[in-house]
Structure formats: C-alpha cells, structure tokens
C-alpha cells in the first residue's frame, strides 16, 4: 500500500522590534548574559507587563502579508508551566482569540502552485535560555531573550512532503523579511519550527495519529526530520505497529529522532485570560494604515521580474527567495543595461562564492554598482568572461572596484594583432603536428591551439581576435 504524509508547521518568529514585548529592554541578540533584562522581564514581584504596541503592529503586518483576517477584538492569555527559563511561571501568549486568523501562502511544488492555509498567527513572549556550565556541574540562566516578542504562525495540515515543508518555511521567511518584521535567522533562533506529522494510506480522508517534532534548527533539519519521520511512521505501520501521539526530539547529528514525551505526559497549561492586560481593540484605521505600509511582497516581486525583466520563472523565484538577495539584484538591475547578465552573475557566481565562503548578502564587501561595472567591462570587451570570474573573486577578496582590479593586475584583454600573431606562431612551433592535422581536416585542432594561446597569455587574449588570426594563419 502507498502512504501519504500529512504535515502541519508551527513556526515561531522573533519580531525585530527595538524593545521587548512588555518592557523597554533591548531585543538585541547576544550580549553578556543577563545584561538585557530588567525587573519586568525577569518577573520580579510587583512588576506588571506593559504591552509594546509595535509588536502588535508587526504581527498585524505578518497577518496581512499572509492573507489573514485581523481580529478586531483580541486578548492575551497566560500559559502556565514551570521551567527555570520562564521567570513568571507562565508565558503570556494568546489562546482562543488570536490576533490574526484564516490566511494562506502559496508555494511552488514540482509542477504547480499550492496554497498552504494558515490557521492563526498570535503574539507571545519568548523565554530565556539555560546554559550548562562547562567547568562545573551547574546550570545557569540567561534572561536576555526573555520577553523578546514572538509570533507563532500555525499552518493547517496542508503540506505533503519534506520539500513542500521547506518551500513553505522559505516562503514564510521571505515574506517576514520583506515586510521587515523579523530577521528570521534560524541559526540564532529567531525563526524556529515545530512539525506535526502523520501518515495515511494514499487517498484516504482519515487522519492518522500524529507526532510533533521539536528542535529543528535549520531548513536542512526540517527537511531531514520530516523525511525520517515519514519513513519511520510508514515502517511502524507496515510492521503492524501503531503510531503513538507523542512529542519527539530531532537529533541532527545522528539524523534520527527519539520520543520526548507522550500524550499522557502532556502538560495542562491552564490557559486563562491575562488579568494584567486589558483586551485589545484593533481599529480598522490601524489595519488600513499597516496595509498601506506593506512593501511589495515576494510573489508580486517575482511576477514583476518575469514581466519587467523577462527573467525565467525559476530565476525570478530564486532571486526573490530572500529580501537581501532580491534587494541586491534589484539595485544592480536598476543601474545596468544588461539585466539578464546581472541575474546570471548573481544566481551563478555570486551565490556560489557566498556559499563557498559561508557569507551572507550583508557581508558582500562591495556595492551593487561594482557588479554593474564588471558586466560593463565584459560588454565593452575590456575583459573576457574567464578573466571576469577572477576579477569577481578579487572583488570579494578586496572589496575593490573591478576597474581598479583590472588595471592593477593588467587584466585587460590583449587585442594587439601583431603580438597575438607572435603568440600563435610560438604555439604552432611548439606543436608542429597541429598544422598537419588541420590540413588533414581535423578542425578541432583550432580549439586546442586557442587554449594553448590563452594559456600563454594567462587568459587575457581577446578570444575573437585570437580566433580570427589563428584561422587566417592556418589557412595560409
């Protein structure tokens, strides 16, 4: 029997407001432990939460960008549980009246667009971090993260594969970055995902027992954990077993998950309305203002790249997968007359170099205008394509502009006919058989000789002129 997976994601994104959700402490990542906290966010007796209105605005923006309805009346609730990183013994979250609900985002699957529905988006506060002493046996708590605003985005179980889950997550990340409400850095924990997975016989309407997977710290983890869990569940069922409703923890190093707690151990969070915070009335004017403030979203931008720049769908998709990348492309394209080349350079060499050097777009040591210059140098025939690749590498090394690099390293194409003829003569002298081979009709020898000539000129020869001279010499 064939099985299909039913997957839903709960995504937590830290909002990039300057201050925390209920006090004026900074939300900045890092910092010495317990330097970004105050009596309010550490839950000292007598302190009260004062809601940072910006967090509500950011969350509404996220809701609008994912096609949600914004609730005109909403409230905050307490989720009660004991854990040392939770200073008040409860987390202020939202229970039955979330700020945003009933939205969707569209993802690309192999052959079609697919709509992933969003059940709800609500605001809540982040907890602190436990640190375990390396030199001693103690545990320590860092409350810097406590009270950093979060949104939790809960999808409907509309996802059918690890690949779709990854696309969905990438789409959410792009949207949140585009609207500038979260920096979505999975490695810093500002974007986190829990995955609910069940399997069922293909075509069935019945939902199987589900498990929840936690501790997924990268897109790769999400992908691998889903693949692994689908396989595990199918294996259990095929072996005649039953899936237990449980929470599992993913171990990225081992590439497997293990049970954390079963349904029976599930906590009773005893949600109830937060009495320290009055309900929120969200005025329509606010929603309308925030709607107007929304920038162009990834899907719209992608369509524009296709229609305005004539880029292929795939290229447009890649270029709009992150705001930084898209902004870099846009800035470059705006200044260039050769957008196709811009797109090729960014999608090809630039992404390769970033990947090899483990850099982010923000780490690029030169402005977009330098890439425009590089492309102009090629288009004007000052340098050839292979030199350009070296120049691009040097731009990443030094941050210098391509004109200077070309000058400094003498990388202009060699166009001097008499000099190039000399080079060709030498190459023919060194490879006497080649002339005979050519005369016998082996035209491919041209390529070999050009290669040799290029090598002799360290790749700087103008390939067109070189070709012309060579053919003329061979025909003589």
């Amino acid at each position, binding site marked *: 029997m064939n099985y299909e997976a039913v997957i839903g994601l709960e995504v937590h994104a830290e909002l990039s407001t300057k201050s925390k959700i209920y006090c004026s402490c900074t939300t900045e990542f890092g910092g010495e432990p317990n330097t970004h906290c105050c*009596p309010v966010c*550490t*839950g*000292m*007796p*007598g*302190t*009260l*939460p*004062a*809601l940072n209105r910006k967090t509500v605005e950011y969350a509404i923006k996220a809701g609008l960008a994912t096609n949600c309805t914004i609730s005109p009346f909403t409230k905050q609730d*307490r989720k*009660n549980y*004991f854990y*040392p990183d939770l*200073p*008040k*013994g*409860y987390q202020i979250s939202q229970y039955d009246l979330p700020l945003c609900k009933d939205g969707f985002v569209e993802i690309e699957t192999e052959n079609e667009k697919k709509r992933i529905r969003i059940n709800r988006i609500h605001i809540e506060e982040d907890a602190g971090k436990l640190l375990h002493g390396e030199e001693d046996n103690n*545990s320590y*708590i860092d409350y810097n993260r406590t009270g950093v605003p979060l949104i939790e985005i809960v999808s409907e179980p509309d996802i059918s594969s690890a690949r779709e889950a990854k696309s969905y997550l990438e789409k959410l990340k792009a949207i949140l970055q585009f609207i500038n409400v979260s920096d979505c850095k999975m490695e810093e924990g500002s974007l986190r995902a829990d995955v609910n997975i069940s399997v069922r016989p293909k075509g069935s309407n019945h939902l199987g027992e589900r498990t929840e997977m936690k501790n997924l710290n990268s897109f790769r983890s999400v992908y691998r954990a889903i693949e692994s869990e689908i396989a595990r569940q199918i294996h259990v069922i095929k072996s005649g077993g039953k899936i237990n409703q449980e929470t599992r923890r993913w171990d990225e190093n081992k590439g497997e998950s293990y049970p954390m707690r079963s349904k029976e151990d599930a906590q*009773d969070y*005893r949600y*109830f309305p937060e*009495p*320290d*915070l*009055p309900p929120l009335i969200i005025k329509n004017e606010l929603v309308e203002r925030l709607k107007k403030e929304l920038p162009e979203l990834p899907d719209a931008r992608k369509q524009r790249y296709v229609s305005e720049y004539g880029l292929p769908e795939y290229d447009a998709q890649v270029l709009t997968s992150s705001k930084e990348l898209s902004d870099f492309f846009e800035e470059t394209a705006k200044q260039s007359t050769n957008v196709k080349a811009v797109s090729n350079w960014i999608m090809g060499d630039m992404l390769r170099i970033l990947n090899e050097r483990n850099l982010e777009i923000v780490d690029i040591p030169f402005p977009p205008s330098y890439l425009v210059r590089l492309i102009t140098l090629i288009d004007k025939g000052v340098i050839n394509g292979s030199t350009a690749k070296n120049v691009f590498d040097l731009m990443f090394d030094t941050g210098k502009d391509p004109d200077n690099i070309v000058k400094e390293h003498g990388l202009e194409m060699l166009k001097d006919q008499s000099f190039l003829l000399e080079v060709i003569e030498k190459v023919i002298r060194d490879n006497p058989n080649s002339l005979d081979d050519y005369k016998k009709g082996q035209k491919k020898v041209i390529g070999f000789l050009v290669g040799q000539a290029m090598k002799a000129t360290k790749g700087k020869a103008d390939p067109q002129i070189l070709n012309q001279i060579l053919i003329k010499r061979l025909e003589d």
Partner: protein
Amino acid sequence: MQLHEYTISELSSLISKKEISILELTQHMLGRIEKLDSELGCYISIVEDQAMEQAAKVQKMLDKGILTSPLTGIPMGIKDNICTEGILTSCGSKMLSNFVPPYNAHVVKKLYNSGSVLLGKLNMDEYAMGSSTESSYFKKTRNPWDTERVPGGSSGGSAAAVVAGEAIYSLGSDTGGSIRQPASFCGCVGLKPTYGLISRFGLVSYASSLDQIGPLTKTVTDCALVLNAIAGHDPMDLTSSRRIHPDYTKALINDVKGMKIGLPREFIDDSVEKNIRDAILNAVKVFTDLGAECVEISIPVMEYVVPTYYIIALAEASSNLARYDGVKFGYRASNPKDILDFCKRTRSEGFGTEVKRRILLGTYVLSSGYYDAYYKKALKARAIITREFNKAFEQCDIIIGPVSPTTAYKIGEKINDPIQMYMEDIFTVPVNIAGLPAMSIPCGLDNNSLPIGLQLLGKRFDEQTIIKTAYTFEQNTEFHNLRPNLNV
C-alpha cells in the same frame, strides 16, 4: 494631645506653621512604635535611620518652599506587599523573607515625592491571603482595642498602626476586603478605590483583576488627602485608568440632603450580628435625619458572591504565585536533588498553609476538565454581579451596609475553619468583583466595646459621593473620635 493622635490635616498645618518640626514628629512616632510595637506587632520592618534622614531632607525642602503637599512630613507605614526600594518587602511570607526590591511601587514613589516619611513596613496575612493577619510568617498583630483579638486582615498591621498611633496613616491593599475589614475591626477609615484608579505597579500581585491599593486613615478628610496623592494613571500598569482624577478634598461637604441611600435587604439579614445591624440602622437614621432618603433595595445574587470571588481570586493567585520557584529571588531550598526537587521543596517550605491551600484550589479550578465548570462560570457570574450592582445604582446614589457580619474575634478562634472565614467576606468581596469603590468608617462599638464599621459603596470612579457621605456622617457623629485605651 500627643502628636500621634493628630490627623494628617492637623499635623500638616502644624508643620507648615513651623509649630513642630518634621524631625520632632518622626522622632515621636518612632518612639511610639518602640513603646507599643513589641506588644501590638504592627510592623515587620521599622526603618528608623531612613525615616530620620528622610525627615531631615523633607524639612529642608519644605523650608526652601520646594515641597508643599499636605502629606509633606507626615509619617506613615506601608503594607509589606508594596515594594520599597532597598527595604525588605516580605508579603508576610517566608518565601520573600529576604526580598529587597530594587524599585519602588508607583504609589511609594508618589508618597516620597509628596514628602511623606516612611516609618516601616506593616504586617499582613501571607501574600494578603487571610482576614485576621494570623497567617503572617513573622508575627501576629493584635487589635489595639483588645490585644486578645485579631485586627482583621489582610492589612491588619496597616489598620492597627493607624488606630494605635504607630503611623499617622498607612497604605493597605484590598483584594476582597483586606482594607475595609481591618479598618472596621480596628475602627479607622479604610478606602478600597475603584479598580484602576491607583497603579498596582509594585504591589505584589495576589489576584490581579481584584487587587487595589488604598489608604487607611483616622478621618475621611485624611483619606481624601492620601487619595489625591496616590491616584492617577501609570503607563507601567495598563489596568490603571487614564481619566484625570478630581481633587477629592472638594468632596468634603457636610450635606446629604436629597441623597438616595440604598440599603440592600441582603446586607442586614440574620447572618449579621445584632449589634452591627443596629449600628447600620442607626447610621441610616443619621442620614435620613439629615435629609437623605433611604431606599430599600435587593441584590439577589449575594449568595454567589463568595464562591465567585474565591474561584477568580484563587485562579489568578495560583498563576501569580508561580514565579516563586527559588530561581531568581526569595527563599530557596537547600541541597536539591534536581530542578524539580528544588522547585517543589522551595515552594513546600517557603509558603504557609493558607497560601498552599489557595494555590491548590486555584490550580484546580483552571485545570482542563474543570475550567468550564468553575473558572468560566465564575467569569459569567462576575458579569451578572457587576450588572446587578449597576442596576442597583440606578435606584440610589450610594449603597450602605456592614463591612463584616462580626466584629473582631479572638486570635486563634477561626484560623482552623477556613470556610467560615471565607464566608465572612460576603459583604466586602462583591465590591472587588464589580470593581467598585467602597469605604469603611467607624459607626459604633459593640457590647464588647469593639469597633463596628459602616460600609459605603459607590459607583465606579465615584469616590466623591462616598467621601461626601462619609464626611457628613463624621461631621454629625462622634464615632471617629473613639480611641482604644492602650495604657501608655
């Protein structure tokens, strides 16, 4: 007359005329505490040095004309669940027996800014959970009228100190009657303001939707003076109201002519001691003699107010007290096996019996499967009770009745019967449930010469009508001048 017998308004006038110095007054009050407090047990902490320093500083500012508040130089005490920077704020609990806040409550800041001098922190039931001040981890407070008896609670220290002259006025907190009931047991004026009139920032939470800070004073005039100083919006407390509060001394008017005074029949039924019923009916006569009209009204939901109150209060308390896990502040268990053992033992050892009972009950009513039957139903009842009081106020300007069905009882008499003690909150809790203001003023003595309190309930944010009515009563009776004989 000795200095501690004066009211705020009298002392304020003596101070501004330079007939007494603030240092002299403070010194006198500290001496009074020294003499009496080993017996009465009003204070958990006495801050002699700070008080004298503050007195000297305030005197200088007064002399320079920088400070001109009626509270300037007035020595006071604050309930020990209101945070004071650098001074132990214990909540009467072992759990916070080492907790020194790094911040002042909003009301403390306001009182300091007005130049009032803090004498110390006042005893209370642990975490304000109780009505006799017997559940304090530190000591029992004795009723100045009869030291074998309780002062009421939870603000028992606050009430006893004012009546015994160990403070000119004090602050208490009232979640279900914790200002009004001790004021009634000890014979002083105690006001529980409208929910939201006074910032709760710095008040250690018991039940967030019910808690409110308020003054305990010798007279209604003093009450208005303190209320003026502490009322007002605070951006740190989103439940505090943004409305501009009036000058409450403007309501000190001796006139109830034409006023409609509501007397709910449920407030004077047989559950109330006869002496108290008589005193209430006497008060009604005082008002009608002065030209007010007495309207008999009914609040049929009264039988539900105590269960409604306890479900809501304890649900919130169970969550508010979750932060006491020994990790960040307060008491912590020693030699724990692991984090769970640490948390469990800290809470088992740090909380007293009554607090534990309330946490357990509150946890229960919020638990899955019971939430709808208890907590959710209580919220509905709360809405109905609030509506009924609003309806009652369509027929009258103010409601009067007793504060408690009894006067002060013997220490130890009821401590083992929590249900009985909860039931006696019946006349005070509806006010908190509906967020209304209410005041207790002395209206007589019972057969044992123990004070009886008259409760005046007002419409939301209508403290003025309460003050006006209470002031009129005071001007036309002598009950507020009755003082216990303390043999010192």
